């Protein structure tokens, strides 16, 4: 492997929005060579790296890629094939935080190709000498995480190593130490190394060459590996051109010059409660998926009640006729006062507990709540009150919606059984117990309301408490979501059971 050169030729990358990031670009990275690629933010460095590593995400749209990648005897047509020769250390490390430090390395080793089996892993493991294998990822420092990520990538056995912003978030000492480690790997293993970086001060002393992504010429050109040359070259790029490029990539128009005017002036803070309430009400109640979800749940319940209520009488057709009126009246009463409120509560509480817990968990993990406190924003009040009110409103409205679809579905199913009978006959019996109840109907309505309010308050309250607890990783958010669903649904079942007993206690 040693002595082989990574060669990129004729590389053209066009984004799904039709923007050319590079056109017909050529560059090389030799064995034992460490090359830094720089460029303005959003200029497309990560897209070039993803292309070289075969990681272009087609879900973003149709990327147009041309060019060839060759290394030793292997050559890949990038327009038709994905490259698997470059190992990538991702920006932010992309460590599996549900696995320990040792498991992160082990899983890569267990899935390494045949070519990696013969490597001497001792130098790689020396990167991790100060880390316990059983150590959770969340407890590792930034430098430790970087070294685990590099070790994991090297263990996988790719012949070329690419690092995306490896020194992001590292202090100067850690950054320099990391650069030394990378250079050692490069020299000892003869691995070509390409680093995309913004902050190159700590890396430059060890870099063999510097390439710059020129956003004007849409190409990659060499720059002298000293800070003065790099700054000069970067200044020469058109910053307005960068903005236009970024805007074209996202499909948005460039902002007006006065777009930010007025946003700094003080206004009424109360509007932010309305803003958060609207956001939560949309997510917890009014979004199409939520409405369709509850509508479908009600419809299935209505179908099941009638289908099995009438289809499995012990004496079949005899009782289907003789007991028809009472059977239908019983189904209608139970469905409107017990079944639909219960099923709607379970569906809403389960789904919304997950949403609430995930939302607050992410806000906790990304320190949004301390940021709100720091900005004197009553964040908890905005969020918690909005969630409690929106969730209760959601459960009440969606229960009514589920009642509508359950009744409609029950009517359609009933008409399958009795196609000659008029729907008014169904209406007369289905709602008979409620109509006959007279003033007692208000008591029934009160019991149903009590179930809804208690289920909502307990379910969303549990999700809020669980979501606001400290989070160390995405995995802890996942676990919290699962916990919030189980506790929320359990509390909902208990609430309904309690009020159902009270409702019919005679």
């Amino acid at each position, binding site marked *: 492997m040693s002595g082989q050169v990574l060669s990129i030729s004729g590389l053209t990358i066009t984004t799904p929005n039709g923007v050319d990031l590079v056109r017909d670009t050529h560059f090389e990275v030799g064995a034992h060579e460490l090359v830094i690629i720089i460029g303005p933010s959003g200029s497309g460095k990560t897209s070039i790296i993803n292309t070289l590593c075969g990681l272009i995400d087609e879900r973003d749209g149709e990327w147009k890629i041309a060019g060839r990648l060759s290394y030793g005897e292997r050559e890949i047509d990038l327009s038709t094939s994905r490259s*698997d020769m470059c190992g990538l250390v991702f920006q932010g490390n992309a460590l599996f935080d549900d696995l320990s430090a040792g498991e992160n390395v082990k899983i890569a080793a267990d899935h390494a190709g045949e070519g990696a089996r013969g490597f001497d892993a001792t130098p790689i493991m020396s990167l991790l000498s100060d880390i316990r294998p059983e150590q959770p990822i969340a407890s590792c420092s930034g430098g430790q995480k970087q070294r685990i990520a590099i070790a994991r990538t090297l263990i996988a056995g790719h012949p070329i190593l690419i690092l995306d912003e490896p020194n992001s978030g590292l202090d100067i000492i850690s950054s320099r130490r990391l650069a030394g480690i990378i250079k050692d790997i490069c020299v000892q293993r003869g691995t070509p190394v390409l680093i995309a970086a913004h902050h190159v001060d700590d890396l430059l002393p060890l870099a063999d060459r510097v390439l710059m992504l020129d956003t004007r010429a849409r190409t990659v050109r060499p720059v002298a590996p000293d800070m003065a040359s790099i700054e000069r070259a970067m200044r020469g790029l058109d910053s307005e051109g960068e903005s236009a490029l970024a805007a074209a990539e996202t499909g*948005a128009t460039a902002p007006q010059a006065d777009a930010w005017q007025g946003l700094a002036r003080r206004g009424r803070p109360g509007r932010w409660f309305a803003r958060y309430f609207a956001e939560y009400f949309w997510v917890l109640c009014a979004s199409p998926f939520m409405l369709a979800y509850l509508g479908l749940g009600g419809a299935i319940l209505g179908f099941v009640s009638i289908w099995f209520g009438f289809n499995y009488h012990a004496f079949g057709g005899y009782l289907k006729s003789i007991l028809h009126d009472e059977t239908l009246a019983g189904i209608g009463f139970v469905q409107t006062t017990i079944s639909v409120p219960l099923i709607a509560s379970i569906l809403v509480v389960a789904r919304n507990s997950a949403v609430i817990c995930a939302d607050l968990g992410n806000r906790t993990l990304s320190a949004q709540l301390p940021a709100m406190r720091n900005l004197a924003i009553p964040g908890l009040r905005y969020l918690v009150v909005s969630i409690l009110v929106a969730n209760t409103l959601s459960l009440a409205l969606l229960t009514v919606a589920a009642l509508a679809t359950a009744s409609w579905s029950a009517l359609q199913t009933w008409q399958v059984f009795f196609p*000659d*009978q008029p729907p008014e006959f169904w209406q007369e019996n289905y709602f008979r117990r409620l109509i006959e109840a007279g003033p007692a109907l208000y008591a029934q309505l009160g019991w149903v309301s009590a179930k809804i309010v208690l289920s909502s308050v307990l379910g969303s309250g549990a999700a809020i408490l669980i979501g606001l607890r400290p989070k160390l990783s995405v995995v802890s958010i996942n676990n919290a979501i699962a916990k919030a669903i189980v506790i929320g649904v359990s509390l909902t079942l208990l609430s309904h059971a309690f009020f159902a007993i009270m409702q019919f206690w005679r």
Partner: protein
Amino acid sequence: MMPKLALPRASFARLATVRLPTLSLRMQYAGGVVVSAAIIAGFVGAAYRVLPHAPSPARMMYFREPQPATIGYTGTVPVFVMKPDHSVVRHGTAEMGAGGLIRVDLFPSTINEYANATEALLADPSLGILWAAATDTSQAELRHRITLVQDMAAQTIERVITSDVFTDDYRPVLRAMLTDAISSAWRDPRTQKAVEGLLANAEPALRRTLNGEVRQILVSRLSAAIWQMLRANWANAFGVPFGYELDYEPAIRAMTETLADPRLQHVLLGFGRAQLETREARQLAERLVIGSFDALMRDRRVPATVSQMFWDVRLRAMLRPFTNSLFALAGALPQHLGGLGSESTLNPLAAHVFKAFAVASRTPLILLVTPADLDRLQTMESDTAVTLQRVAAGAASGAGEAAP
């Protein structure tokens, strides 16, 4: 040159790479709002479809029960309509006012389909109305089975009621139930109407006397008279609700004997034997028998006593031929009168009648029929239902009773 490298992709990975339409956030939100609004409109439509709507004057029909009212019910009753194939479906509800005015609110979904059903029959929930609404085929089948029951009954009952077991253990109980049934039948307004018809030609003084203390004597003696008649009519009695004729001669003879009672002779002096052989007398006897049977069917003691007789090993051997034929008839009744069975669908009229039997309800029903069907039903069974008189909506409003 090395072969091209293409990473294998699992089928689920292809799903993940399906390109979704990329819209701006504002467009995504606007699209979501539109879809949500459409779903909410669906909910509103579903609710509108299932919830009962307010009555509309355009769907109203008004009737009046002929006076004097024989059913005299006040409240809400179901309205049915007879289809051309004689099957029956629900057609609306009716509100019966205290003054005999009946407001019928027809279902919107059936009002146009059965626009020709303009005649209304008001009936008690009885086997008679089911018999009247049965098809010709069903009626023929049931007549055949009733004939079989009659044959068996004639042989079996004579053997049973002459046995010591029956005379000692069951006759007193049955007599008590029969007495109650006859009393109930006597109090029925239709029976009273028949009495009035019988006595219409009598002297006024005699009528006053008959309506006083003599009626008590008549009732007690009639119990024995009806019992004697029943002994001679066991078999035919099963067919009475379905239009079978009774042999009234024993009853008439018994009534004659009743009239020979010395206590009555001086007040019945002017009431000649000829009066007792008139059509009115036959109607009275028939009304009493039918009313008695109707009351027996509602008497909760009857099933217990019949069950006890059925399980009585002393009677079982004697009853078996009869019970076998009776069970065969009973098995055919739900199918032919109610349209019931494992392959059947809902017959709301039968369901209403059977529920009335089960809960001892007397909520009457209204059956809307075409003029042709009304003629047929009146010919077949004149006593089962009352034909209602159609009145105009304006007249109903002017009456101030149950007006919309």
